[in-house]
């Protein structure tokens, strides 16, 4: 059966993920070394050690995401994160930067490495580079591939493959977007925060709620209109061709209906996005996919509507897994 990899932004969410049936939980330190560096979120060193003890006692694994790109003159912060995660007993490190992978492979040669989605390794040659040079054992594929492409890559790669099945989507190849950096001066890829909340404002107007990022208006929602995250890629803009979602609609990925195809493609693990979400999300989404995997094994039906309340814009998509163009 494919592994279920689940998010946790707090120790309580981690416990919820284990209770709901996670095979592994991914989490990060409470600093800029991971791509969900939001206020009040993530783990101290002590919390990570306790989380690993709890997870191992329950038969689950802990994967530590150190998946931002080190800044020049501040590389020590990332090296310390690697050293501390290894000494805490992490089952794998999820890395994106080749310099950090090199450091980890040399310093901790027995540590299992996964290639983060932030590395955007989207073809067998790129994956082979990480496997041959750093001993990477798994690659998290970027959310730009169709199921047949995933099958092809998995067939040709020595690495295990892991794919996202639920949660927020990026419009671009991960790790290569600068929209939020342009608007706020803070980099998702180096400081770990896309649309930093310090730069987000919500204003109640006669027409509804106006959301802005760094002074740029992103959207205006009517009082009963579903909303999305305040990211520029999911903004609604006016152009000469009309007004609408220019880059991407505010929707969440939900690949519940594609599990059979992903299994047949040889995928090792399924990942749920959402370390920034609350316990209720983690518990419900993990439980949904645990049931869906059991149903896949037994050949029975899966509920495909249950996760709608958790989706951005109250809508879901199959994303690039089933590509369509408008």
């Amino acid at each position, binding site marked *: 059966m494919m592994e279920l990899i689940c998010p946790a932004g*707090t120790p309580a*969410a981690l416990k919820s993920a284990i*209770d709901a049936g996670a095979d592994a939980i991914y989490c990060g330190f409470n600093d800029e070394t991971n791509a969900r560096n939001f*206020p009040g979120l993530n783990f101290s060193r002590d919390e990570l050690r306790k989380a690993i003890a709890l997870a191992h006692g329950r038969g689950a694994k802990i994967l530590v995401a150190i998946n931002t790109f080190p800044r020049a003159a501040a590389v020590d912060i990332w090296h310390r994160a690697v050293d501390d995660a290894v000494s805490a007993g992490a089952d794998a490190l999820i890395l994106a930067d080749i310099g950090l992978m090199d450091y980890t492979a040399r310093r901790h040669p027995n540590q299992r490495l996964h290639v983060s989605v932030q590395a955007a390794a989207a073809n067998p040659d790129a994956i082979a580079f990480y496997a041959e040079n750093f001993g990477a054992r798994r690659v998290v594929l970027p959310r730009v591939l169709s199921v047949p492409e995933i099958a092809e890559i998995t067939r040709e790669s020595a690495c295990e493959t892991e794919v996202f099945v639920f949660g927020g989507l990026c419009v671009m190849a991960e790790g290569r977007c600068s929209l939020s950096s342009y608007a706020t001066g803070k980099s998702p890829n180096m400081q770990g925060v896309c649309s930093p909340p310090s730069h987000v404002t919500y204003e109640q107007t006669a027409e509804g709620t106006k959301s802005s990022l760094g002074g740029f208006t992103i959207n205006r929602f009517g009082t009963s209109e579903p909303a999305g995250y305040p990211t520029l890629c999911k903004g609604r803009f006016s152009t000469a061709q009309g007004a609408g979602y220019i880059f991407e609609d505010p929707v969440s990925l939900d690949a519940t209906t594609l599990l059979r195809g992903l299994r047949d493609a040889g995928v090792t693990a399924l990942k749920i996005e959402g370390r920034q979400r609350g316990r209720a999300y983690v518990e419900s989404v993990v439980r949904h996919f645990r049931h869906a995997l059991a149903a896949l094994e037994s050949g029975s039906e899966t509920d495909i509507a249950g996760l709608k309340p958790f989706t951005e814009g109250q809508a879901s998509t199959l994303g690039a897994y089933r590509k369509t163009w408008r």
Partner: protein
Amino acid sequence: MNDPSAASSGPLPTIPPLVALAMRPLPLLPLQLALGAVLRGIHRRNPAIFDRLGAHARARFGIRPIDLPFAFVVEAKPPRLSVVRELPKGLDARISASLANLLALLEGRVDGDALMFSRELVVEGDVEAVLALRNAIDDAQLDLAIELSSLFGPLGAPARRAFEAARGHVIGSSGQSEQSR
């Protein structure tokens, strides 16, 4: 500790407008004293609860249940709570939702982002402070029946059962995943 899997089916109920109207003349001081004691009790039993607020530990949050004729001003450090008819100016952030949704958020039974997506939760002001507060509370695993019944001394056990029954009526016993059905 509560179990987020134990959640309600269907959207959470709101207080009927007539009931809210009947509550309008009620004095606020007794409620303020009781809730202030609950907040201090939570802080005493979980001294690390607000550590996740970080730089926002001294923020002043205005919390307005949209179906009640009063609102709350809450500060974490030191723990302070006041009940007001209208939220004052100068707050760091304002959070509005139905009472049931606010209670469910406090217990981690609903997901704050999902409430934002469905427009059942409205945030204004310092979004970073609100996010830190949400994450701190979500990690705290509060059980409001336990916290409220702690005010009742020797009558704590029956009070807790009464609060649990009331919670089942207001929030229900299951989760957000069921809401669309």
